[in-house]
């Protein structure tokens, strides 16, 4: 699956980022969220882009210990195998993988099918790709 943002509806409040870090890391920290709302100010106002897992699988290919796998829907990490080397963090083109407070890779998994960010978005601007199509 993938996340889709309706940029027309998004107000840039970042509640999705806060909800994500709260759920998965137990803290508030947009830099520890598996999605980012990037705002660019332009001549005509504001341009908004979503950064989230696109399932490019670069992290899966890069992980030296094969701790990250793709189950056909989302990424899965084997915490027992992860060494916290950070290669996946560096290779993620969206910047939505990071090391958690234990120094282990935190991998986006769309909350296993029911993304918390979608549930929390007050503008109903986030969707699952399958729900748009």
């Amino acid at each position, binding site marked *: 699956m993938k996340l889709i943002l309706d*940029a*027309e509806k998004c*107000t*840039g*409040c*970042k*509640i999705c980022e*806060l*909800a994500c870090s*709260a*759920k998965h*890391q*137990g*803290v*508030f*920290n*947009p*830099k*520890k969220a598996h999605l980012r709302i*990037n*705002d*660019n*100010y332009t*001549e*005509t*106002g*504001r341009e908004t882009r979503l950064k989230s897992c696109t399932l490019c699988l670069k992290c899966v290919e890069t992980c030296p210990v094969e701790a990250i796998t793709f189950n056909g829907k989302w990424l899965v990490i084997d915490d027992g195998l992860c060494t916290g080397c950070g290669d996946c963090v560096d290779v993620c083109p969206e910047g939505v993988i990071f090391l958690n*407070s234990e120094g282990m890779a935190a991998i986006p998994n769309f909350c296993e099918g029911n993304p918390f960010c979608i549930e*929390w978005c*007050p*503008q109903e601007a986030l969707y699952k790709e399958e729900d748009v199509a």
Partner: protein
Amino acid sequence: MSYRWKILRVNLSTGSVAKEPLNKGWTEKYFGGRGLGAKYLYEELGGGVEPLSPENKLILVTGPLTGTIVPCSGKLAIISKSPATGIILDCAIGGSFAAQLKFAGYDMLIVEGQAEKPVYLAINDDDVEIRSAAHLWGKGIFETESRLHDEHGMEAVVLSIGPAGENLIPFACIGSEYYRQAGRGGIGSVMGSKRLKAIVCSGSKDVIVPDMPRLLELVRKAIREDVLTDTNLWAHIGGTPTIVEMSNSSGVFPTRNYQDGVFEGAQKINADSIRKLRPHKKACFACALGCGNYLCIADSTVEGPEYETLALTGANCGVDDLGAIVRFNADCDDLGIDTISLGNVLGFAMEMTEKGMRDFGIRFGDVETYLKMPRLVAYRAGVGKELSRGVKQLAKTYGGAEFAMQVKGLELPGYDPRGSWAMGLAYATAARGGCHMSAWPVADEAFGKLDPFTIEGKAQLVITGQHYNAIKFSLILCDFWALSMGTMSEMVSCVLGREISVAELAKAGERIWNLLRLFNVREGFKAADDTLPARVFKDPLKSGTPAGRVLPRDQFDSMLREYYQLRGWDSNGAPTPEKLKELEM
């Protein structure tokens, strides 16, 4: 709990950068934002400091709710002594700077001294650097912000001043995210006097609360059942331009320098007109509402215009051309000028000119001249040299004090007190002068069910509003979530992990209000300063519900006396020792 317990203190005279502990005892009494910032300023400044001297301080304060998912908790308080009024100045700015400061690891930033050459401050977690701003000085806020984003990344948040702040205009503002401002009282010129062009901040640290599942449950319920309900949704649907219709139809919409309260062109600048043109909305950090409207007309873009801008630079200048207001607004945002004060200055100058009292070369509705004014004022060029002094000083030199619409040197916002008598008391007693952010009783009177033309019960109405806002802006929450004290207590108790009752919050609100007053008493302000422009007492309004009305002077005086009595202040408006003892101050 969500405090970081750390202050960042930067002295621009010596170049020192220090990290020191936050005073825990003070947070228990003043929480954060307006209250805690005022406490630090009161204790550190002493009386009689010249506002534009190196001795004045600029205090940027977050609150216990900042950085959390509590809705509408994105605001930053900026506290200083005002060059416009000589008394306390408490500003609030939206956007996401407050959250970034907290994520960088600080509850508060105190800027002292004065740099020799223009500088900006770069904060990236523990790394704090004072850098040369030679390449930024002289630039507008838009370009400054864009260049700092190029240098520090898009996720860094910028606070900056424009030429108006650099040139020490007494109504220069601080801008952030291009179109948001700490607007009033010349806060931008305090920054300019320190030769501090900008502050750029990015943070990556956690904000921690004691019981995350409980907070998420509380907030989820609050967003659904409270924030996103009819009481607040106007802020999302129309934003503050919604108030144009409310003000105009109740006859309190300042028109042609408060000569009238109904503007014939109001329909052209109301929320409906704006909604048709806006490409999208914008929210501050952690705000579920999102009140910002982008407007793009001709070659000007602005997030706005907000109600106050539509009132003061629109109706009050006799301008009903929305495109012109958008351009004027964008220029003010870029140059770093407070639109409320400039709208008043121009309205005053227009009336002076039309009455033949002094020719400032500008008349009501003269859009072409009007559009030149932000630039002339920011650079003190041509007629801008005089106009940049503000309404109070202009009246001192050229007369017209009766219709110089200011209190204590701060120009009035967009609600005519002749059609909302409690609003008159709120203006007269607001800590920073003519201001609508201390209490907003116009909502109960002109826009609500209370009779606007009686003083009965109004002193208490204003007092309750002042305490409510004092604590709300100290936690910090935005004005536009009209939450109950009970909900406020639930949120803050959960975030702090200890029970903070409604009574404790109300008492803190009163304590903060008394502290602001103590600051002003120390500066020599007395009961005689708690007054309104003579026009409010003498010139009847012309149209609508309040047609023929003034706020009678004797009624105002009675209301003010009752206000002092209820507050436990002496007849000169100073808190009594008994009151201070009761408030544990």
